[in-house]
């Protein structure tokens, strides 16, 4: 369609696809319906691969997974009414984790807008608080400029989802198409995006004075591509690095200065280090409540320097001493030349000493006692990938719950975008569709779904999409017969009243087989690695049902309202680990 003739007349539908092609889109995830039929009719004329999903929620999670794996804007598509509302969970998931996404929805004709027409819903109204911005387009000539602006908004500044709702008459009408003329005005940086030389000097001074500094590495490092700068920064001053859930992989875990994950299920020494630090350097993270614990007792001795691209995050949860607003990579580039080297390793040694008995308590160091623990399964998936030299080529996509935290603890991520997980919204059912998006973006990589038996059933319909697309996705269902994290909270805070948390599951291997997907059941530790290898090397989708310990808990754990250092540790004499029989 790269017609060189001046301004060809195209239908709105053709303009949409031509604009998407111009924006570099190669794959969209969607589901057709009445109000978007003209757009689907025009699809065959354009070099874009459309992945038909089984539920629109899957489409938005796939676009999200695609964006997280590739760094490009993910695109999903649905019809009006129920199609649009089914996208909502995925859009909110992307919003909370700052993922660049453009969602296109069909809408009833502009002549009947507001009349409760068949499959009409006010989707721009519904998604107002969960999108970075949204548009209602009622004229064909507005489609190209609006879609181009949507891509700019989605990917600039702090990224986020943008929804474009296009009425059916706009899809059918014709207008002149000129991709270049439809370009939005140059991106206007946030008027508050100013890092003054003075505040940089202040920050440098605080860093030079600090005896016990700590870097809190967040998702912003990945989004801004600041990995090298952060490594240089940490090494220059021998500053240990703690990571948020979405920051895992941003700083290599094998690095001697890497401590691991902080927060509610973070490593004990990381949380103790935060509480003892005299300076926190927050790099592209937002002091989420899962990271800080009780704010009144958070890092009481520490000065705080916050570098973030979003000014509304400054002083939102934690009051900071110096705020540097702007792109992390650029800000660190400005700071690095002024940062004097410092080679004293006393502080990092002190932090390492805090690990103390942690290794003894760690479930991973227990000898095989005949039980299969989820932590072992996840650690073995990591070991297997490492042994095969595929670690840098592996993407793990998790669902939400206990397995997600075990993944964060026992899969050691060294590369950015190697962990895809719903952090902010905590969306169960995310893993399978997001993995399809990740595989579409990175077909050469080994993509693993790690999901619980509960979350997997929420979006299991997308198994059919995997087969349809021929994606060799590895699926590990961590099956403990419970909504595990709910059960753990009920055990800890609700007197073991397991209300609605035991969950019946189908035979997952048979379910996979019904879709034509091979699978295996694993309930012995010795079978884990061979089965993982079999799955990874099969070149086809493969599902492994790991039948794990029913009532295992994620430790350490910070109870709601407790301070960061008041962790509940895994008991050294865990009755669960010592009895040979389940009770």
């Amino acid at each position, binding site marked *: 369609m790269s017609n060189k003739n001046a301004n060809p007349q195209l239908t709105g539908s053709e303009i949409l696809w031509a604009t998407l092609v111009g924006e570099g889109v190669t794959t969209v995830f969607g589901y057709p319906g009445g109000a978007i039929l003209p757009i689907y009719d025009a699809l065959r004329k354009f070099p874009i691969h459309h992945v038909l999903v089984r539920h629109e929620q899957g489409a938005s999670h796939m676009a999200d997974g695609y964006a997280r794996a590739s760094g490009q804007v993910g695109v999903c598509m649905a019809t009006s009414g129920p199609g649009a509302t089914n996208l909502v969970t995925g859009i909110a998931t992307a919003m909370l984790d700052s993922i660049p996404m453009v969602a296109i929805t069909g809408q009833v004709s502009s002549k009947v807008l507001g009349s409760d027409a068949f499959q009409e819903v006010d989707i721009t109204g519904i998604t107002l608080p969960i999108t970075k911005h949204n548009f209602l387009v009622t004229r064909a000539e507005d489609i190209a400029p609006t879609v181009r602006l949507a891509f700019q908004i989605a990917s600039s500044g702090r990224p986020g989802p943008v929804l474009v709702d296009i009425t059916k008459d706009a899809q059918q009408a014709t207008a002149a198409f000129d991709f270049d003329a439809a370009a939005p005005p140059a991106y206007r940086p946030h008027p508050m995006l100013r890092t003054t030389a003075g505040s940089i000097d202040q920050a440098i001074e605080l860093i030079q004075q600090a005896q016990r500094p700590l870097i809190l590495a967040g998702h912003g490092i990945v989004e801004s591509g600041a990995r090298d700068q952060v490594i240089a920064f940490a090494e220059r001053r021998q500053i240990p690095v703690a990571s948020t859930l979405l920051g895992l992989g941003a700083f290599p875990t094998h690095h001697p200065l890497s401590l691991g994950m902080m927060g509610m299920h973070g490593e004990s020494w990381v949380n103790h280090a935060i509480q003892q630090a005299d300076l926190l350097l927050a790099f592209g993270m937002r002091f989420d409540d899962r990271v800080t614990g009780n704010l009144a007792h958070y890092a009481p001795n520490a000065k705080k320097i916050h570098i973030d691209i979003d000014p509304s995050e400054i002083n*939102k949860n934690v009051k900071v001493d110096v705020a540097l607003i702007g792109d992390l990579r650029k800000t660190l580039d400005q700071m690095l030349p002024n940062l004097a080297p410092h080679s004293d390793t006393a502080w990092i040694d002190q932090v390492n000493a805090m690990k103390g008995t942690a290794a003894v308590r760690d479930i991973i160091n227990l000898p095989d006692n005949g039980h299969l623990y989820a932590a072992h399964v996840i650690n073995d998936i990591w070991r297997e990938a490492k042994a095969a030299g595929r670690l840098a080529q592996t993407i793990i996509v998790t669902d939400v719950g206990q397995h997600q935290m075990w993944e964060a603890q026992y899969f050691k991520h060294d590369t950015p975008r190697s962990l895809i997980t719903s952090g902010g919204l905590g969306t169960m059912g995310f893993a399978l569709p997001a993995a399809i998006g990740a595989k579409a973006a990175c077909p050469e990589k080994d993509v693993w779904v790690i999901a619980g038996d509960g979350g997997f059933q929420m979006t299991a319909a997308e198994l059919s999409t995997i087969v349809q697309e021929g994606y060799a996705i590895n699926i590990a269902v961590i099956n403990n017969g419970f909504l595990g994290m709910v059960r753990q909270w009920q055990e800890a805070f609700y007197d073991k009243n397991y209300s609605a948390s035991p969950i019946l599951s189908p035979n997952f291997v048979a379910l996979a087989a019904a879709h034509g997907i091979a699978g295996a059941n694993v309930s012995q530790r010795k079978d884990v690695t061979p089965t993982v290898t079999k799955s990874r090397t099969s070149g086809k989708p493969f599902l492994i049902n790991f039948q794990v310990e029913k009532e295992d808990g994620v430790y350490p754990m910070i109870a709601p309202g407790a301070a960061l250092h008041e962790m509940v540790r895994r008991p050294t004499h865990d009755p669960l680990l010592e009895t040979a029989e389940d009770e």
Partner: protein
Amino acid sequence: MLHTFVALVSDKPGVLTRVASLFRRLNINIVSLTVGESERPDVSRMTIVCEAPESAAHRIKASLYKLEITVDIDEVGRSEAVIRELCLIKVAAGPAHPLGQSSRSQIFELANVFRARVVDLAPESIMLEMTGSSSKIEGLIQVITESGYTILEVSRTGRMAMRRGHHTSRVLKALGTTNGSGSQVNSPTDWNSQPAADILPNEFPEVHPEEDREDET
């Protein structure tokens, strides 16, 4: 405490919803909100007064900036700006009133003191129009009530604010228009090459309390 924000926003459908939705999301009560045209054809001007803790001002401002429809945000204090509202008050007065005809003249007198104008005179009522600060309007309402008159209706616009002196929107200024009414600038501005005086500082009252002093006079 009460915060007064002036928001310049693009003049498009749905903009009011976006601003209102933001305050709802932050769980902050809007005391008053006025919207109208500004000196630029494509920009609407809102004055938003809200009740929020002092520390919330920065977050509200930054969150308003995040809306794609926002051109500029300014928070104005009482001392540095002219803040006015318009009020219409209908008072029961006339021959049927217990005070008879003299009720009218007494209302006229009260109106004079407060520099309110009589804009409608009916057999049973008088309508007053008044512009001024909120406290002055409340003063008139109080005096009328305490003088034994019955107020039938009150309609207030809510506050409008404008900074005193030669202040124009910093963003419009940065875009190249010195008085905000100049021609639109076509070339994208290179923000990093702006002279230091024109760039916007990091404004964090909690962080740099000394910078905020002049606002407290």
